[in-house]
């Protein structure tokens, strides 16, 4: 079966503005452009190469993340896929119906009600009235805006708009779904819902192209990823590998900036992190936990030779990329010796004290001097829930153990103290 989607040596070049503004010059330049005649490189025009010889393909039911810094060319790829713009050279093949979730609410009219906008947005995305009618209830239920369905969209909160936009775009059950950095607006529970929805679509054979700076989300929904920078594909692989590479590159840049000598590079070949688990106190794998529970990060490794003294570091990221904590064996004066063979290194965080949100852990095995890493790995995603509902996730990072006290001036002797465990 041919891939649903194929990029073959695609190059996209943008003109950086018209260099001449006199009327005859514009007319002749415009006529050339419109008729695609004449020497394109004339006049010493300036170009921006948004994509340079990019190739990749995507099979049915696969998910691919596009990772890279801003301006790398990710959005250009989406625009080419969505047929919004044409490549300067190369081939873009799309086999199947494509639905794009690029800017939520782009097709919404603020004066129209939610109901009217569902029809409007649905038809823009290529559905017929009948299709939308069939799915209308499902869309409304998913977006959780039942009460406001006949309210003009201009009175919606941004969260409601995002929910409605995602509900319409995903209900199409397209062959290919493009999602560009739009889920960041919703709250944690809606994000989870979107992730579940995307996974269900993937299981039903939809292919996904996903663009996000949220590495947790990328891990959650994508098997594969490509790393793009300056319009070129620098790396292709499983999303965990590409994310690690991306983090390494960011880390390396940071180090270069700080003018440090001594390069950080993975030698490879000495050892490998085969798996990473996040487990609770009973040793069971954890996907959901609470901040007052303990959490253990387990690094399963295989060493291919006797390494001797080594170090490990575990770093936990929140889904928005915040590095929540870093723990290192040498700082904790834990001595680690790795011999040839398999093993597991664990670090227990007790209690976790994280605020509600989605997290994942990455680990590095470092040399004895703790200057170079030789193996790295990442865990699955886990969610920390708040004990008391109603507090928005990611308004804070920590929920520390705490003690409140109150000493009114008049009653200095009777200080009121109460120990409070995490709620």
């Amino acid at each position, binding site marked *: 079966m041919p891939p649903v989607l194929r990029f073959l040596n695609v190059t996209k070049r943008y003109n950086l503005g018209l260099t001449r503004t006199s009327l005859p010059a514009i007319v002749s330049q415009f006529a050339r452009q419109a008729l695609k005649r004449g020497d394109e490189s004339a006049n010493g025009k300036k170009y921006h190469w948004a994509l340079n010889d990019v190739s990749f393909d995507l099979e049915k039911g696969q998910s691919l993340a596009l990772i890279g810094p801003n301006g790398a060319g990710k959005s250009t790829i989406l625009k080419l896929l969505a047929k*919004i713009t044409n490549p300067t050279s190369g081939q873009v093949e799309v086999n199947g119906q*494509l639905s794009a979730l690029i800017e939520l609410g782009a*097709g919404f009219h603020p*004066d*129209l009600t939610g109901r009217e906008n569902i029809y409007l947005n649905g038809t*823009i995305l290529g559905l*017929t009235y009948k299709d939308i009618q069939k799915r209308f209830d499902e869309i409304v239920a998913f977006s959780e805006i039942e009460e406001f369905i006949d309210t003009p969209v201009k009175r919606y909160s941004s969260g409601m708009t995002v929910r409605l936009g995602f509900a319409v775009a995903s209900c199409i059950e397209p062959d290919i779904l493009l999602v560009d950095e739009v889920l960041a607006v919703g709250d944690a529970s809606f994000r989870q819902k979107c992730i579940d929805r995307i996974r269900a679509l993937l299981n039903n054979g939809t292919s996904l192209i996903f663009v996000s700076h949220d590495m947790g989300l990328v891990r959650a929904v994508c098997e594969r990823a490509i790393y793009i920078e300056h319009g070129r594909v620098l790396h292709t692989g499983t999303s965990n590998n590409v994310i690690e590479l991306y983090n390494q590159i960011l880390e390396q840049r940071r180090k270069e900036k700080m003018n440090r000598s001594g390069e950080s590079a993975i030698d490879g070949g000495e050892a490998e992190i085969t798996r990473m688990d996040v487990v609770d106190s009973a040793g069971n794998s954890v996907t959901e936990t609470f901040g007052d529970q303990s959490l253990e990060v387990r690094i399963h490794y295989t060493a291919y030779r006797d390494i001797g003294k080594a170090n490990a570091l575990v770093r936990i990221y929140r889904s928005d990329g915040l590095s929540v904590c870093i723990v290192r064996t040498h700082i904790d004066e834990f001595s680690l010796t790795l011999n040839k063979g398999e093993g597991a290194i664990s670090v227990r965080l007790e209690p976790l004290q994280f605020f509600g949100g989605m997290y994942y852990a990455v680990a590095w095995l470092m040399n004895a001097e703790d200057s170079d890493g030789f193996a790295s790995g990442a865990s699955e995603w886990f969610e920390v829930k708040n004990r008391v509902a109603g507090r928005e996730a990611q308004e804070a990072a920590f929920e520390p153990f705490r003690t409140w006290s109150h000493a009114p001036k008049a009653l200095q002797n009777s200080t009121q103290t109460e120990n409070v465990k995490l709620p």
Partner: protein
Amino acid sequence: MILQARQLLKTRDLVWAWTVRTLRGRYQQSALGWFWAIVQPVATVAIFSVVFTRIVPVDTSGVPYILFSYTAVVPWTLLASSLTDMAMSLVQNMNLVGKIYFPREVLPVAALLARLADFGISFVLLIALIMIYGVTVSPEGLLFLPLILLIQLALILGLGLGSAALNVFFRDVDPLLKLIIQIWFYASPVLYPETLVPERWQGLYFLNPMAGIVAAYRDVLIYNQLPGDYLLPSALISCAILLIGYWFFKRVEFQFADII
């Protein structure tokens, strides 16, 4: 081109939704609502009636001037308002054009359809006027009415698609178009009967497709006669303009998202 026309047929739900959106957006927050659709032509006719009956009387071959001018002002308003709307239709929705793919023709076509709804409303008033003045209208003539409207729509569509596309590249198109429409108004027999134009200029005069279209509306609706040969050049020129406008639109549509 036939294939593309079929594609457009497939997206008729979108055209419809966008037309409704345009109409709702235009009339939702206004107290008079749909009534505004008739205000424009009625006001124009009121002014003309004062000027051309009291100050400079115009020979209308026995037809009351109000009816005479309203019959022409209604189709003229359709042309003028839909062309200005169509020219702006892509530019005003650039956020959408730059983000989502859908057939680009939808936007100008929906702008035209929204104005066609206004045309329908003011046409109802035209029928009422015809009945009030007791003008006899022959059924044969009425058979021509859809044809005349089709010719006019072809003309508007061709010009509208072309100017919508061109406006993406040069915003000068919008003010220029308004100026052209103003001049065009006086070059068409809206205020005056086409018979006022000297015989030797008539051939040249009817190269203006709107001259034939307006004259045909009048012949059919108030003079109880079939349109003359003058309608043929109007039809041919309108079709040619439609082809050229559509060709140009398709030719440059892939550049829209890059320019914006």
